[in-house]
Every structure is written in structure tokens, then in C-alpha cells.
């Protein structure tokens, strides 16, 4: 089976500053988790994959197409939806209006009603704030809207950049369950997350991003425990993992 998402020797950055130095990864049939120290290129990687910034070298394949040079809007149209880190969304639009914009992609229009129902089922709390401007929402509520917007785009692959950033533990669990539910409905995930438990819960295939490179990888089936990941973070006893 060919991979839904396949990234090969990817390089990109901002202006003349290179941030990614040859990253390769693939989803296979699994959910992918990315972690690593701050400022080492995780967000940059996701932005390059979704077409917000251009790759300077390497290749990105999604759903059987070479999308390396495609603009973001065409990649969205293929079913890759990216929830950016700490998105403000559209501060003056209400939740209702924001979700309506989520159904912008042509391929998502026929399933707009179904996707809306699904989003509201996963995040029932949104209904209570339906006509409230997004800027008046709490951080957690805003994160729920951001994920719902992506769900309205009818994703095949959902990219989440630190979805639990700044959330209280209870809300984290709630969000984790919600994202798991999305995944169980057949949407593949690529998740960047600092919270290791959260990541272990959702992803089967982990990559450590360090200095714009993949420094280590835990493949599905290999033992993944908190301890091993902490060791990867701190660079001790890497053992069989490269």
C-alpha cells in the first residue's frame, strides 16, 4: 500500500535561513507523532507539508500526488487539513460563521451537513457558544473550533500542531478523547505534541525532530514508553534506536 503522506529529504526555511535539513518520513497506515525541543523545526515541517511555505529541496507526496510545489489551497482540496499552532482563527467571526468557512473546499461541500454534525457531536460545548465571536473564547474552546474547522474540510489527513498547548489537564484528556474519536472514524493523524502521554495515546509511529533533522524514530510495534522517549529527548542511552 502506498503511503498517504510521504516526505523525502525535505529542506525548507525562512528567507535564506535553512531550518529543515533533509527530513524524511511516511505515514504508512499509522498515525504519526512528532516531538522534539522547541525551535527545532516541527512547525516549519508542518507548514512546508501543507504548502504555507515552499520547500527548497526534497519531495512531498500526498494521496498519490506530488504536491511539493502546490499552493496550500490545492493541497487542502486533496484532503490534507492543517490545524496550526495556537491559531487565532478569525477573531471577529462567530463559531457558526467560522465553521461555515471550514467547508470552503469544493470536495467538502457535499458533506457539509454531515461534517458539521460530526464536529458538534465531538465538541458539544461549541453549540453553547454558537454565535459568540471567536476572540471571546477560551484557549481550549478556540482549539476545539480550530479542530472543528479542519473537520469541516473533510480531511483524509489531519495535521495537529500542539493541540494541547496551554490547556488544563482535564481539558487535555477531553481533547485527546475527541481526537481519538476522529482517528477511529478513519482520519489519519500527524500530531506534534510536547505532552508525551498525549502523543503515546494517539500515535503509533514517532519521530524525534532535532536541529531540522529526524534524530530518532520509534516504529509501530516497537516498545514505546515514557522512559524511552525521555531518553530520546535527553540523548541518553539511545540504544537500538537511531
Amino acid at each position, binding site marked *: 500500500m502506498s503511503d498517504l503522506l510521504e516526505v523525502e529529504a525535505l529542506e525548507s526555511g525562512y528567507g535564506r535561513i535553512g531550518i529543515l535539513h533533509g527530513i524524511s518520513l511516511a505515514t504508512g497506515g499509522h498515525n504519526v507523532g512528532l516531538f522534539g525541543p522547541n525551535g527545532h523545526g516541527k512547525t516549519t515541517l508542518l507548514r512546508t507539508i501543507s504548502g504555507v511555505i515552499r520547500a527548497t529541496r526534497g519531495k512531498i507526496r500526498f494521496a498519490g500526488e506530488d504536491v511539493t510545489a502546490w499552493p496550500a*489551497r490545492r493541497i*487542502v482540496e486533496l484532503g490534507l487539513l492543517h490545524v*496550526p499552532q495556537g491559531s487565532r482563527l478569525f*477573531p471577529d467571526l462567530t463559531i457558526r460563521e467560522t465553521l461555515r*468557512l471550514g467547508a470552503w473546499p469544493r470536495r467538502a461541500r457535499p458533506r457539509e451537513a454531515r461534517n458539521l454534525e460530526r464536529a458538534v457531536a465531538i465538541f458539544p460545548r461549541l453549540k453553547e457558544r454558537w454565535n459568540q465571536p471567536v476572540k471571546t473564547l477560551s484557549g481550549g474552546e478556540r482549539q476545539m473550533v480550530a479542530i472543528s474547522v479542519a473537520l469541516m474540510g473533510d480531511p483524509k489527513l489531519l495535521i495537529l500542531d500542539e493541540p494541547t498547548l496551554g490547556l488544563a489537564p482535564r481539558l487535555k484528556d477531553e481533547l485527546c478523547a475527541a481526537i481519538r474519536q476522529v482517528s477511529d472514524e478513519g482520519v489519519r493523524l500527524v500530531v506534534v505534541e510536547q505532552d508525551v502521554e498525549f502523543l503515546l495515546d494517539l500515535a503509533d509511529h514517532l519521530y524525534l525532530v532535532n536541529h531540522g533533522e529526524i534524530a530518532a524514530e520509534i516504529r509501530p510495534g516497537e516498545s514505546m514508553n515514557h522512559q524511552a522517549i525521555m531518553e530520546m529527548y535527553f540523548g541518553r542511552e539511545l540504544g537500538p534506536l537511531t
Partner: protein
Amino acid sequence: MTVLGQILLSALFQGSLYAMMAVGLALVWTTIGVFNFCHGVLMTLGAYLAWQFVDPEALGLPMFVALPLALLVVAAIGFALQALLIRPFIGRGDVVLVAVITTLAASSILKNGTLLVWGPRPKSIPPLAPDTIALGASNVSAHQLAIIAITPVVLGLVWLFLNRTRVGLALRAVAQNEDACQLVGMNVTALYALAFGLAAALAALAGIFFGGFKFMSPDMGTEPLTKALVVVIFGGIANITGPILAAYIIGLFEAVSIYYVGFYWTPALLFAVLIVVLMVRPEGLFARSSRGLA
């Protein structure tokens, strides 16, 4: 007609013209974040193209064909101007300043172009409605009444478009977060073009209003542009309802001031009031703190 009636009529009439001009300016500011100094000359072009299409000496088309055609052509010109003058500079930190220069330059070129093509001889286009209507004891031009009636309808439609349709929603959104727009699959440059085209068509409509009751000249757009700037600064550029309200308030202010203080001192008085308003409310009378339409 009573004094009050005359003042109200004049206020509604001037307010309509100001609102029609100011909304386009606000639309471009809220979506693209630049001031369009071509807005006045787009109004001029609307009037001259309408003349070209409708005048018996020129093409002599019927009004109901000529006027929509003029609006469409000016919208297309607006679209092209945006692609030439603004799109290449989007993303630069100094785009606001660059756009001031490019749109001022284009405005001057187009003004002189109008003079070259159509000459200095004053022209006028037929009024929207030719007759006068008896209102109380005096007669009022039906053209003016038509403008007073059409403007709220057109601006109401613009408001509905921005607030009730998905594309209108997208125009409001692009003002607030461009990255997020890309990530839901919007074509941001196309939305910019749409905003500019729509604004241009509104300016052209103002030009058609204008050319139906005053003589047209290549310079006719300059004063309305200045007024539109005053209106959006006064009303706040955060949305379109602010400038619309401000347009009618300024229309009323001028009508009252012209009657009681006189024509000569009215502009000075208006600017004095504007300065005081800006000292008290720097964001404008009706503005909220963030940028965004509707």
C-alpha cells in the same frame, strides 16, 4: 418645502454619495489593508464610460444596458489595477506606503488619460429618472430621490453579501487571518481581486449618480475621494457600517452648516469637528479595535 425638509433632503442626498464612495474604500482597506487613492478616478471612469455607452454622439446604448456595462468595465479595471499596483507588493512590510505611491501614480495617469480620451469639454449623462417630483410646495429632482432610494438598497445588498454568503464571509476572514484562510483552501489573491473589483464598481456607481446631475470633468473624482477619506476616518475603518453611518452624519452636518453658517466656512468647520472626534476617539466614531468587515 420647509427649511427642515430641504436640509434633510440635502443631507440624505450628499450622505448617499459619500456612503457609496466610502464603502468601497473601507472594503479595500479591511480586506487588503491598503488605502486606494485610485478610488476617485475609478468614479470618474465610471461616469465617462457610462457617457461613452449611453450618449447618442457615442455608442447610444439604452440606459439599462449602458449603466451595468459601465459598472462591469470599471470593476474589471479595478481588478487589473489591483494586480498591477498592489498584488506584487503584498507581503512586504511597507506595502501600505508602497500602495499609497502606486495608487497615487496610477490615479494621476488615469486622470490625464481621461482628459486625452474624452477631452476637457464638460459632459453629462442622462439622469436616472428625468422628471421632477412635487414634494409639498416645491419640486425635487427625481434623480436625487432615486439616488436617495437606491443607495441604501445597494449598500444593504453589500452588507448581506458580506454577512450572509460564504464568499462574503471569506472576504471578512481574509482581513483577519490570511494564513488561516489559506489553510481552509481559499484563494487569497482571488479574494483581494474580488474586493477591489467590487469597490471599483461601487465607485463607478457613484460616478453615474454624479454625472446625472452635475457636469463631468476628468477631475471630478478628486473631491469625492477626499470626502470618502474623511468619512472613513470619521466613522472608523474597522467595518462598513461605521463609514455608512458616518457618511449620513457628515451629509447632515454639512447641510446644516451650509444653511446656517454658509458654504464658505463649512469645510473648515467639518475638519475642526473631525479633529475633535479623532482626539476623543482615535479609532473613529463607530470602530472596534480590530480590523474586519461588517
